């Protein structure tokens, strides 16, 4: 190399006559060849779009959430039923003499109206209706819906989420559900609308302490006091501040109520303890999700449901 070309003066860099070429076109001949140029000093950033088939699937998608739900086994295996709260009384154990407060619920003409499926609606649920209402007081779309199910006009309609196809098959459309659907000793969750308290103050609604009866307090004994700090906290009321307002009248779930008695003839289910809402309110009863699933008679055999394949995006 040096023999072919004249040598540059010693004060000049040795490669002045041979400028660096693009590495893409011609890789450096020498492994220790020094490269000069503009180089970024900031570290290499990863790909902003974390999307690659080799990456693990995302966990924050609806499909992933659904699969987690299946894995957690918190979806009941069968549908629930609608009942009316009849009132509270007590149950005595003749042997021990123990008194157990209980709520009497009555099931009235429960029938399965429709199956909501994962493929069509995004989740599996059984639509159940109860009671009876004059058909002339129902709209035509609903009448057609009920006619297709082959059931009578219903007063109340609700749906119960179930696990997979098997959960849907546990109760066919048009089937009636009586008090015998539940067994004595099993645990259920109840959902009902609590008693409406109207516009309630902070003391009643959130358990605020109120203000003293004396020491110069006048006319504000039950008021909520301060709604927040001054300059330090932005001189504003923070979101979610507990304040007076409408209380009650919202759905309350009571979990793990034991079924004490079942009277299939009169449609009665007696559960331990209290159920929210006034007498005569609608109560949704379903197998407790935090207890082992009750042993029920096996339904028609079905192939095992396969969890849906995870996809990176939904």
């Amino acid at each position, binding site marked *: 190399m040096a023999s072919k070309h004249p040598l540059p003066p010693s004060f000049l860099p040795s490669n002045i006559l041979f400028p660096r070429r693009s590495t893409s076109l011609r890789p450096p001949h020498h492994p220790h060849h020094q490269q000069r140029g503009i180089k970024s000093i900031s570290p290499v950033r990863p790909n902003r779009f974390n999307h690659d088939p080799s990456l693990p699937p995302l966990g924050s998608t609806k499909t992933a959430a659904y699969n987690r739900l299946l894995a957690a086994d918190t979806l009941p295996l069968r549908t629930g039923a609608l009942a009316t709260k009849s009132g509270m009384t007590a149950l005595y154990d003749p042997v021990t*003499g123990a008194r157990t407060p209980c709520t*009497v619920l009555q099931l009235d003409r429960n029938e399965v109206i429709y199956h909501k499926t994962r493929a069509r609606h995004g989740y599996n649920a059984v639509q159940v209706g109860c009671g009876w209402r004059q058909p002339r007081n129902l709209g035509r779309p609903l009448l057609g819906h*009920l*006619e297709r199910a082959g059931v009578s006009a219903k007063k109340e309609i609700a749906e119960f989420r179930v696990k997979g196809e098997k959960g849907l098959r546990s109760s066919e459309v048009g089937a009636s559900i009586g008090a015998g659907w539940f067994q004595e000793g099993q645990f259920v969750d109840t959902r009902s609308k609590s008693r409406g308290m109207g516009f309630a103050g902070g003391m009643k609604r959130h358990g605020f302490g109120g203000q003293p009866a004396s020491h110069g307090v006048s006319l504000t004994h039950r008021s909520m006091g301060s709604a927040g700090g001054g300059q330090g906290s932005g001189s504003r009321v923070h979101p979610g501040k507990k304040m007076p307002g409408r209380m009650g009248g919202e759905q309350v779930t009571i979990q793990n109520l034991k079924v004490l008695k079942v009277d299939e003839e*009169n449609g009665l289910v007696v559960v331990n303890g209290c159920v929210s809402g006034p007498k005569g309110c609608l109560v949704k009863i379903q197998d407790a999700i935090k207890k082992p699933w009750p042993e029920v008679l096996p339904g028609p055999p079905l192939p095992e449901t396969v969890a849906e394949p995870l996809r990176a995006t939904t």
Partner: protein
Amino acid sequence: MASNLCAIRPLARLKPLIRHQRCIKLRQRAYATQQTIPNQGQPPPPPQAATLEKAHHSMRRITLKPPPPAMYNKCPSPVETFEASQIAALDPIGSRTKLFSRSNPDAVKVGDILLVRTRSGDPFAGVCINIRRQGVDTAILLRGQLTRVGVEMWYKIYSPNVEGIEVVQRRAKRARRARLYYMRKPKHDIGSVENIVRQYQRQKAALGSSDVKGRDANAHKKKNNKRGRN
């Protein structure tokens, strides 16, 4: 009649005429509108039969299945039904029900001194100052004394823990209140009923238990349960 009407109300015949004229006018207007709609080169509307059929389809009569028999008719008061089944099991001979029944003239009334024997612990005697009637949950409030301290005890009359309820003494005159809470005041407090109970028990022993057995809620049951349980 009509002539009379005309004579009384000369304009009575005018109103129907005006109404008729209005009808005619309306009809004429409708004709006019129909004619003014431009026929934009489209084919005439489909034959009337099709529209009729469509109308017929949209107003198809939807008949639903008749409702099954209502549970409400079968069991109009579920709580009472449930309580009745429990009372039948807890009080098979109905003595406790009778002892507190409103229809029984010899029932317990507020102001009577009662003695309650329980499965565990000593019997307690006191004045009945409140009867809370609530089906199987019916309870009585007795006010007595223990170690010279006024004590009030609630007893559920159908509880299996209550072995028997005896009427020690009846109030001389009917109380004119349902709840005798005024007896908590020192002025009205009856104090200890120990002497009255002791006298009653002495009498009972002298007479033999035949007389008082009728008043006792379930005297026969007591003997069976006294030692067997707990």
